[in-house]
């Protein structure tokens, strides 16, 4: 009986220990991703879906961050350890008898600053003076134009970059 009581107290204290201070809550504003909106090249005011889009980091070991999505807006992370981030934007078009893939390379250039969030989440990175570079491939680019609309990446409320295609 006493043992059970001790166990009970122990359980209470174990769970009592898990406060907001110990786990980073998922809704906390930590490092923001860069939000990219896709618009029609012919009519830049109109949003236009990419059918179908995959996005991979463009390094020796590439990691897929967007996988075969039919979308007009994406949010992708930027590197927290380097002043540039390289991505491959892959558009896959399915035809009746074949599949076409077109890969465009885009590099994001920026300045970084680390800001304190709280004790559970540690720090976040804020990005300034965001710039983008589309690797030209002549007529092979499916992305026609990349424009930065917001140079500071500190939230994900609205697009930072538009890509016309």
């Amino acid at each position, binding site marked *: *009986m*006493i043992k059970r009581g001790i166990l009970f107290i122990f359980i209470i204290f174990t769970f009592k220990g898990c*406060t*907001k*201070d110990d786990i*980073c809550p*998922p809704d*906390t504003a*930590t*490092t923001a*991703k860069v939000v990219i909106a896709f618009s029609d090249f012919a009519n830049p005011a109109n949003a236009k879906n990419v059918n179908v889009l995959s996005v991979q*980091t463009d390094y020796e070991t590439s*990691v897929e*961050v967007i996988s075969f999505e039919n979308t007009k807006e994406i949010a*992708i*992370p*930027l*590197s*927290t*350890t380097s002043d540039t*981030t390289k991505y491959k934007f892959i558009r896959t078009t399915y035809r009746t008898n074949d599949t076409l893939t077109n890969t465009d390379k885009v590099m994001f250039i920026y300045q970084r600053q*680390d*800001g*304190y*969030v*709280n*004790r*559970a*989440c*540690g*720090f*976040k*990175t804020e990005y300034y003076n965001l710039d983008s570079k589309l690797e030209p491939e002549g007529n092979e680019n499916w992305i026609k134009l990349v424009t930065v609309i917001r140079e500071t990446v500190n939230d994900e409320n609205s697009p930072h970059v538009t890509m016309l295609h």
Partner: protein
Amino acid sequence: MMKIAPTLLCCISLFCGTQVMVAQKNNETANDTIPKVEKFGLRVGVDLAKPLRTLIEDGYSGFEVMGDFRVTKKFYAALELGNEKKDWNEPYVSSKTSGSYAKIGFDYNAYENWLGMENAITLGLRYGFSTFKQELSSYRIYTDNPAFPTQTIYESQEFGGLTAHWAELIIGIKTEILNNLYLSINVQLKRKITEDEPENFANLYIPGFNRTYDYSKFGVGYGYSISYLVPIFKKTDAPKAEK
């Protein structure tokens, strides 16, 4: 079940014992003519828990000295002075804090002693003040995406000349174990009033206040101390004539 019997016995004997004592006390107040002698003086002591933690806990060192002076029959002016050094490690941040603190206030003895005894159950209030420095030794950028794993950044930054102020409720028990020698244990509930926040960081630990919480201004603490009463004068508490 075997264990319950002695426990129960103990409780019963305690209960009976108190009954007798209460009866005695009543007798005393009614008939006693011996005047109650109250000792007044300066009580000085040290915290035992902090040196012990210094020995056994990694990344901690600290000490605290205290003194109280009996002002009236029930009230004691109290002062604690201490110094603490503490490494605080969280999954994403590590810091080192060191500094000194002072707590000043009073204790109220809520315990009615029997003749010749000097025990106390005290309720006290303190104003706490700490000056310290904090060093951010390493940190990581929080991330939940696998594309860019974070690295721990070891760029030590020091924030000096920080201060913090808090109010503290302190509840303790003091027992006279030998003549004029007291052992006491206390728990503390603290509420931060103001603090200097380091730029682009926070105080994870404040000497005297202990760890802080992001979502609350409260803190907790405890003390276990030994103290010696230097008697300065004695006052006879002449029993008031019964009405």
